[in-house]
């Protein structure tokens, strides 16, 4: 005989619980945590290579790198001389809160003032899995085309800022950078946007100023140590 059993449970409840636990650990340790998400090749690691040396004199910076395969990005960050934990997902297309929790036990990660979580390059899946971070930044290569925010809205809807990278290359393509920003704000009204280039350093200081400002706001909240 068939019978129906009512359940009403959140499917990602477990991830949400682990993410909340991560957030508690970040706040207790005084670590401000920023996730970088975006498509593969948008420049997430290159941006870290540009900003970490500028931040490192004043701040202890650490990075958790998420990749489907290889420790190449982790090696690039390690060359900067800051603590880095590499997560290799072996095929999984996103980081989840449990993977990050395990990486937090690696040396130096929770001793930082500012921790970056670089997610697997992907505009779809990472949007569904909160990691406990304080800010979510979506990094896009300008040459990917201005329609991307409309085509992958979930990622932009959850973003706290967009870094529109590789703007030095925009002149060589038909991309419309103003439309890129307009579409992003159509999905996520008021989204702060930073146009950057890792080649010319355009916009890098402005983005660092935003990160500094966001960290100050977080430190002023009661949850931060």
């Amino acid at each position, binding site marked *: 005989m068939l019978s129906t*059993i009512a359940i*009403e449970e959140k499917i990602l409840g*477990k991830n949400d619980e682990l993410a909340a636990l991560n957030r508690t650990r970040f706040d207790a340790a005084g670590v401000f945590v920023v996730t970088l998400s975006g498509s593969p090749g948008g420049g997430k690691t290159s941006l870290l290579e540009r900003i970490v040396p500028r931040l490192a004199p004043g701040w202890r910076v650490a990075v958790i790198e998420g990749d489907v395969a290889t420790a190449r990005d982790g090696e690039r960050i390690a060359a900067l001389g800051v603590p880095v934990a590499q997560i290799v997902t072996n095929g999984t297309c*996103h980081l989840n809160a449990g993977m990050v929790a395990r990486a937090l036990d690696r040396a130096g990660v929770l001793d930082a003032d500012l921790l970056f979580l670089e997610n697997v390059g992907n505009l779809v899946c990472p949007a569904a899995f909160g990691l406990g971070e304080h800010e979510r930044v979506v990094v896009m290569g300008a040459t990917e085309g201005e329609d991307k925010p409309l085509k992958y809205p979930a990622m932009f809807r959850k973003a706290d800022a967009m870094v529109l990278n590789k703007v030095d290359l925009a002149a060589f393509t038909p991309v419309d950078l103003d439309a890129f920003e*307009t579409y992003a704000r159509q999905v996520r009204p008021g989204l702060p946007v930073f146009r950057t280039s890792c080649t010319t350093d355009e916009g890098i200081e402005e983005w660092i100023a935003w990160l500094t400002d966001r960290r100050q706001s977080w430190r002023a909240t009661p949850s931060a140590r």
Partner: protein
Amino acid sequence: MHEASIVERLLGMATAHVPEGAVLRRVHVRIGALTGLSPDSMRFYFDAMCPAGAALDVTVEPLRAACPSCARRMNVTEAGGSCPACSAPALHYENGLELDLVAIEVDDALDDRDRGEDSR
């Protein structure tokens, strides 16, 4: 893409609710239009992962939207549209991230057969 890991979690939760001796026949989930999940893709992974041959029902919850300019409220099926009344480019969504296991249907026929044999 991430439907695979979500369906894996879903199946784990659903099977945990199946009473001993019963067989899972149907799983009912509710998803919001802002989750970016594809019901077809969820069914594909569900069929591949569910050994008992159960079915997956996916209900897509309507999106409740409000216009920040003219304050009109409406239900829409897809995110990303402009306001039909005043053409403001973006709407504010009040929901859309639902991802819930609503209910399961189980077949406890095995128990019935046992009882039938007992009474004979």
